């Protein structure tokens, strides 16, 4: 689309982004508030961060969440990539409709339903609720998101690359590992990151499927939020936001830089 950068467009973008970011900015600002009252500014302080690190329950929950996140994201990436391959490469097999349904439905399924159904499954097969069950639940949910991300890359993947590799003597398995996988790697990495953040973020499914000793950070935050807004929670949230934001920004800056370099190279190649 061409650019008509009118006043209306600028205004709507500015207002839209203000709406998106203002609450988060305020939350961060008030995490440095001296006063216990979250909404009244009482001077700059980092004391809530200090007390945060002495809150054993919160620190334990953070550790659990990080472990669940890394493990579930890793498994979800493998399963999601396989699912994406199935969706794009095998257009005709029995039960394909059911399969694509099962991949897309969790994306919009209300979390209460997914959480409840998974819990009932775990009870039915006699699996004690805890670290393992949360991880399994998160793998199931996030693999579908990974599948969508990887699939959108595979759809635009030039199949003649694979044919060229096979034509040059590489077996299908070798072709996959030497050509397909390296080329779609960026999508797989962003799939992993998405899975990790979703796991980090999830309250509802974790609440259903988790058990004693496996309280995740969102569960902890939720139970404290219900008791009232405290600067300590603001501090915890700020740290979470910072971790995710730094990760995402680094990733996209690196991406951007590669893209710019690539464009420069291409221009140079056209000239030379």
């Amino acid at each position: 689309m061409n650019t008509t950068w009118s006043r209306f467009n600028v205004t709507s973008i500015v207002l839209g982004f203000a709406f998106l970011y203002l609450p988060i900015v305020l939350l961060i600002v008030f995490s440095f508030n001296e006063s216990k009252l979250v909404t009244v500014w009482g001077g700059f302080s980092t004391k809530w961060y200090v007390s945060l690190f002495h809150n054993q329950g919160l620190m334990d929950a953070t550790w659990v969440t990080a472990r669940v996140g890394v493990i579930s994201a890793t498994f979800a990436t493998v399963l999601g990539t396989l699912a994406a391959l199935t969706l794009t490469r095998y257009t005709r097999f029995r039960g394909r409709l059911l399969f694509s349904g099962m991949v897309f439905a969790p994306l919009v399924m209300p979390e209460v339903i997914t959480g409840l159904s998974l819990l009932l499954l775990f009870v039915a097969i006699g699996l004690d609720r805890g670290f393992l069950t949360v991880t399994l639940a998160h793998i199931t949910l996030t693999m579908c998101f990974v599948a969508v991300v990887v699939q959108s890359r595979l759809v635009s993947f030039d199949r003649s690359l694979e044919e060229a590799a096979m034509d040059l003597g590489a077996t299908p398995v070798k072709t996959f590992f030497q050509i397909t996988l390296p080329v779609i790697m960026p999508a797989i990495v962003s799939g992993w990151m998405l899975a990790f953040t979703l796991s980090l973020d999830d309250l509802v499914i974790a609440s259903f499927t988790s058990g004693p000793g496996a309280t995740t950070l969102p569960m902890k935050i939720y139970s404290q939020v219900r008791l009232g807004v405290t600067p300590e929670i603001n501090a915890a949230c700020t740290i979470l936001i910072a971790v995710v934001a730094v990760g995402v920004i680094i990733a996209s800056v690196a991406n951007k830089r590669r893209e710019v370099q690539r464009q420069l190279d291409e221009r140079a190649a056209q000239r030379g």
Partner: protein
Amino acid sequence: MKSLGSIRRDFAPWNDPNAKPYIQFDNVTKKFGDFTAVNNLSLTIFEREFFALLGASGCGKSTLLRMLAGFEEPTAGRILLDGQDLRGIPPYRRPVNMMFQSYALFPHMTVENNIAFGLKQDGMPKPEIASRVAEMLKLVKLEQFAKRKPHQLSGGQRQRVALARSVAKRPKVLLLDEPLGALDKKLREETQFELMDLQQNLGLTFVVVTHDQEEAMTMADRIAIIDKGEVMQVATPAEVYEAPTSRFVAHFVGNVNMFEGKVAEQTANTTRIAGSSGAQIVVDNAAKTAAGADIVFAIRPEKIKISSKKPADAVNALEGEVYDIAYLGDMTVFHVRLDDGQMVRASTMNAARITEDPLSWNDRAWVSFRPDAGVVLTR
């Protein structure tokens, strides 16, 4: 026919009944669901031949190439390479390499790794790979680009990497899918001759798929014209142009005038054709046909003379009116509407800068041609 052979005069294995075919398509059919891409097609290609499959898009020519490479299996029939049936042999075990239309260069590998890829798959020792890659880079004149990635190359350079990669394994047959399709016109003309040299120097068999008749005419020893999954004609470029065997081929390659009519009288060497409006022409080369049968005389525009007066000695001379003139620099194309309504296209080389007998729009004009200037077609 006097001289409608190959440009390489000493190379014509297709005329030698003892020559061993190298690639054979034997009654090959390929169906995709209900769609028949290739229909009971047979074709023979000889060793060291530069063979072109020419046809419009969707005619099945790419499917032929992909069956040879092993990406598709024929639904029926068989394909032989050097006497060996290729059925069931996957692409990675066929001694055939392909240069892709999109080049399909591996974006995450450098130029040299792209070229070395096939050699590594064969488990060739490292030093040998290195020397072969160097040789290939030299061949395509890309020595200083060895460490570049594909996106750091121009279109022409990418094309040469793709070429180097596909010949690096010294395949028995090199398949080229629209090899020049992505290049601009000037580069395409240069590269045509490079490809011909390369084929000669390496002594490989080339099978090239193209929709560009000029490209096929320039490069190939023989051309197969494909339409709707069937071979219309296999012949040298000169034969295809001067002696098409069907209306389709005559229309497909170059421009042509068609005189339709019925056989009025046939002698030993000539046939008189009566047009629907009474105009008659006399032509050579017709096979024995019953009087009254439908027949077509196909003649290229440059074989027709145009003049303002009736040529005295012409066997065939028809009168009409100049309808349109297209001046193209090197030649001028006249569209003449004959008195029976038929349009005739005649082209004249502009050998001199000033024409002595200029014709203009709506002038009366005569078109004339020799009895052997065209071919008689029955299908």
